[in-house]
């Protein structure tokens, strides 16, 4: 959105409406139901070979999983604060907060990289057993979503630098992007206990 568009819009003060636009909920609702299917499939196959799944789970690093949970929660908090700032009409700090959000997202990727390479160097791959197949596929598909999310955040960062007024269009844009990023966060909050903690 250009500055001129933003200036033309009436300031949005209505806090009771749904955040973002309605369409983004189709994407998020749809994607969450696909992941719900993945989780059910995982739990079903886990039930078939409980011993193998429990034993394999112990090789996963709970501290690294926990670290990534904290990283994503903090990243989401940065993003939410940036939007809160812009809503209040403060546009100086928001890009910095968004950079923080992006750097934390990259941190998640880095931690995942170390996690994967440690597993692979120990000979644990996608085909080692069913548990690791789900481990790699679920975390891999989540990582794929997260990388798309980093693209979305970069786009929001660029937009936030041009912004001088908060209106309906900017609310739609930033809130829809944030809903996506929070979804990535929420998915990890399901994946972490399912894979790392469930005994």
């Amino acid at each position, binding site marked *: 959105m250009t500055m001129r568009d933003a200036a033309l819009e009436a300031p949005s003060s209505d806090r009771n409406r749904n955040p973002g*636009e309605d369409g983004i909920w189709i*994407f998020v609702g749809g994607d969450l139901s696909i992941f719900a*299917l993945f989780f059910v499939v995982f739990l079903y196959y886990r039930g078939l070979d409980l011993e193998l799944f429990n034993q394999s789970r112990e090789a996963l690093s709970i501290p690294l999983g926990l670290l990534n949970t904290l990283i994503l929660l903090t990243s989401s908090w940065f993003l939410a604060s940036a939007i809160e700032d812009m809503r209040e009409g403060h546009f100086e700090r928001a890009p910095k907060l968004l950079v923080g959000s992006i750097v934390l997202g990259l941190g998640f990727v880095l931690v995942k990289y170390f996690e994967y390479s440690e597993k692979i160097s120990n000979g644990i791959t996608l085909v080692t057993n069913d548990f690791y197949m789900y481990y790699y596929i679920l975390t891999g598909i989540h990582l794929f*979503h997260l990388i798309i999310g980093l693209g979305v955040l970069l786009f929001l960062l660029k937009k936030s630098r041009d912004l001088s007024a908060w209106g309906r269009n900017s609310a739609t844009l930033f809130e829809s992007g944030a809903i996506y990023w929070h979804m990535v966060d929420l998915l990890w909050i399901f994946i972490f206990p399912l894979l790392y903690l469930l005994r």
Partner: protein
Amino acid sequence: MVDIGRANPKVLSGLWWCGVVSIITFFLALWPMMGFIPPPAPTLTPQEFYNLIFDNVLMFRAGVIVVMISAALLLPITALMTYFIARMERGHTPMLALTSFSAGIINALLTLLPAVVWAAIAYREDRDVMDMQLMNDIMWLCYMMYWQPFVIQIVAMGVTTLKARTPETQIFPRWYGYYVLWTAVAVCGGGLSVFFLDGPFAWNGLVGWWLVVVMFALYWIVSFVVWRKAINREALELGSG
């Protein structure tokens, strides 16, 4: 500034019907004619696969012909999608329309071309069954792993739908843009099939097959409804029936 002008709504309607026929015949061929819904399990022995094909090989061969016609009919629907995207890009050189157009052509080609491998399997009954298995592997991996052109074709559609914010350029509801992007993300999973001979991610599994094919079929059903409405509106605006 580029304005591609308006297409004849009757031509658009013709393209739309080609698309409907394409998708219906595709499932018709795969399902009752070839017995490939769900696909043959990757774990079938070569002999079991041979029996599957040659129990009713005439119908199977006819099915291949229908699949190939259906694949070619993806070309008119590609033209229709390109027109819609270019309409939404009005005022700019329609680069996303070109992106979608080129991806759509490759998508049609990659549906058309591998089908001949099935024809070759059914062509010679005295062939080594191991070779038949190899050809069938190639065939299914083509269909499940070549999601990229289709995804590019529809991502261009989704992105343009979300970018079109003025009354002149907005021809689809905004939820459609998000819906299309969701489909694009969901069908990527088929690419995993190369890793698995069985289980949910194999080419006949719950995720590797059913999720992908349901999302794919739903995409076409939803799109045909949305596109029909847009064509009817165009016809109304131009004052011709």
